[in-house]
C-alpha cells in the first residue's frame, strides 16, 4: 500500500484532537483508511440514547471520490436500508473533494434528527413514516432500544 496522503493524516489528527460532539471515529490498527465510527443518537430524536456503529472507508481516490459509509447497527430510518446503506446526497452526486470525514459524519447525525421520507431508501419504512408518523417513531424507538443500547 502506498503512503498515506497528507490530507488523510491531517483529518485523522484533527478527529482525534478535536472530536465532534457525539461522534467518535477511530482508524483501524491495520488500515488507516478504515474507520470504526460510533454516532450517538441525537437528543429529541427517536434514536436518543442509542449508540450506532458505522464503518467508513476512504477509497483510493479519496478525496476526489466520496468515502464509503455504512451503518452496522440495525436502525429503523427511511433513508437507511436493511444493509445499513445510507441515502445521502453528499455521499453521491453532491460530493465535493473539499468535504471531510467530519462533515460527512455530521451530516449523518443530522439525518438521524431529520429523516426525509420523501427521498426514501427503505420503502416500507418511508411509507409508514408518511402515513403514520407516530407508529414509525415508536418502531424507531423500539429498534434503538433493541439493537443500539445493549453494548
Amino acid at each position, binding site marked *: 500500500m502506498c503512503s498515506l*496522503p*497528507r*490530507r488523510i493524516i*491531517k*483529518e485523522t489528527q484533527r478527529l482525534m484532537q478535536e472530536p465532534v460532539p457525539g461522534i467518535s471515529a477511530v482508524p483501524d490498527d491495520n488500515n488507516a483508511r478504515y474507520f470504526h465510527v460510533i454516532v450517538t443518537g441525537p437528543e429529541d430524536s427517536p434514536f436518543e440514547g442509542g449508540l450506532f456503529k458505522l464503518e467508513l472507508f476512504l477509497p483510493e*481516490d479519496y*478525496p*476526489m*471520490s466520496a468515502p464509503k459509509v455504512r451503518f452496522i447497527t440495525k436502525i429503523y430510518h427511511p433513508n437507511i436500508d436493511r444493509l445499513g446503506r445510507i441515502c445521502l446526497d*453528499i455521499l453521491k452526486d*453532491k460530493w*465535493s*473533494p*473539499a*468535504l471531510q470525514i467530519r*462533515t460527512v459524519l455530521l451530516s449523518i447525525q443530522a439525518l438521524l434528527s431529520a429523516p426525509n421520507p420523501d427521498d426514501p431508501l427503505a420503502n416500507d419504512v418511508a411509507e409508514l413514516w408518511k402515513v403514520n408518523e407516530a407508529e414509525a417513531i415508536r418502531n424507531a424507538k423500539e429498534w434503538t432500544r433493541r439493537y443500539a443500547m445493549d453494548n
Partner: protein
Amino acid sequence: MSGQGESDMDYSDDEAGYGDYYAEADTYDLEQVDISKSDPEYFEFECLSVEEVERLLNESVEMLSNSLKILSIKDLNIYEKVCNNNKLLSGCTQITPALAKVLLHTHKWAIQEVTDKYRSDSQALLVESQIEPRPESSTSHRRQQRSLRSNSNVPLICAVCVEATNEGYFRLACGHSFCSLCWVMHFQVQISQGVSTGITCMAPGCEVLATEDFALKIITLPDLRKKYQQFTFQDYVKSHPQLRFCPGPNCQVIVRAKLPKAKKCFCQSCKTAFCFNCGIDYHAPTDCVTVKKWLTKCADDSETANYISAHTKDCPKCHICIEKNGGCNHMQCYSCKHDFCWMCLGDWKTHGSEYYECSRYKDNPNIANESAHAQAREALKKYLHYYERWENHSKSLKLEEQHFKKVSKKITGKVMNSGSGTWIDWQYLLDASNLLAKCRYTLQYTYPYAYYMEPSSRKELFEYQQASLEAEIENLSWKIERAESTDRGDLENQMDVAEKRRLTLLKDFLNV
C-alpha cells in the same frame, strides 16, 4: 444529399443543375418539382465526419462570441457616453470561445436564444448556465480569497490536499482556489466516470462548470486530454438537436438534419438505416414513444409469444404440417393445392376481396362484463394478434432477403452464362424485390401503431388501409416468387399499386 433511398440518387442537391434542366423541360412532372410535398417520408439530411462536425460546432461558437462581442461593445459605448469610464468593462465577464461553448451546450446550440437572454440580462444568463456563481455565495467567498491573497507572506493551504504551497493555484469564476495537483486528480476521477462537460468546481455546493480551456490548461497528460475531448465532443453532439451519431457498430459518422424530424435517415458509410429522432430502427407510421413502448413489451412478453406461436402450422384443409420457407403469406399447400392465408388460416379467396380482414383485430364486445381472468386472456389474445403479425412480417422480410440474393445470382447466371438478355433487362426484378422490402417494412410497423390505437372511426380507416396494403404486398410477393411465369407488365403494375397503398397510408397517418 436527400433522404430518398439509394435508388433516387438523381434528386440529390449536388446534381441540382440537372434537376432544374429536367424540371424546366418537363413541367408536367410535378413529382420531381416538389417531392417534399408528394412524399410523406421525404427527409433531408447529410452525413458528416467528426472533423466536419467539429468545424460546424466551432462556427457556432465563433458566431455567438462575435455577436456577444458586438453587444458588449454597444454596452460599452453607452457606458462611455454616460460616465466616460471604460474601467466598467473589466467588471463584467468577457465571453471567450470556451464560455460561448458552455452557453451553447446548456442551451442546445440555440444561438438566438442565448443572444436574446444575454441582451435582456447577461448576469442571469451566466448564473443560469453555471458560468458565474449564484450572487449570494460568491461575494463572501471572493472576499475571503482576496484576504488570503493580500497576505502573501503566509503560504496558501489547498482545502483539498491541505498542503501548503504558494504556487500553482487555479480557480473558476466562483473564486474557489485549489492547487493544480488536486484539480488534475479531480478531472481524472470525473473523466474516468464519464463526466466531461458536467465537471464542476471542487468547493462544496458550488455549481460553476469547468470550461474547456480551463480543463485543458490543467490536464497535461495526453491520454487524459484526448479522453476529455472525446467525451465533451460526444456531449456536444448529443445536446445538438440537428445532430445524431450513427447507431451502427463502430461507426464514426454523424448525421445532420437542418429540420430534425422522426424520419428515416441512413448512414452512407455503414448503411445503417434509423429514425433520426430516436436513433433506433425506422418505424413509420408508428411514433417514437409508441414504438419504444411496443418493443419493450415485446421484449418482456416474447417468451410467452414464442411458446404460443409455433413455427409450423397445419394446412386448414388437408392438415398436413407446413413449414413456411418463403416470405409470401399467400400459401398454397403442396399436397392439396389449397390456397390459404398463413396468418389467419382463412381461404385466400376472401383475402383478395374487400372483405379482407386478416389484419384487423376484433374486440369482444362483451368484454367489460367478463371476469378479470377472461379479460386478461382477452388482453393477451389481442397482444398476440398484433405481435404474431409483427413478428411474421419481420420473418417474411428476412426470407425475402434470401430470395433477393437468389434472384441476383440467377440474373448473373442468365446474363453472363446463358446470354439471355442484358443486365438492364433484369433490373426490374431487383427493383421489385427492393420495393417489396420497403413496403413490408412499413407494414410491419403498422402493427404497433394499430395495437395502441383506441377504437374509433380513425382506427377503422387505419385498419382498412392497412388491410389493403397487406393484400397488395402479398400479391406482389406472390408474383415476385413466381416472376418467371409472371408477365413483366403485370408485375410492374403490382409494384405501382403496392407503393401507392403504402404512400396513402403514410400520408394519412404519419404525423411528423
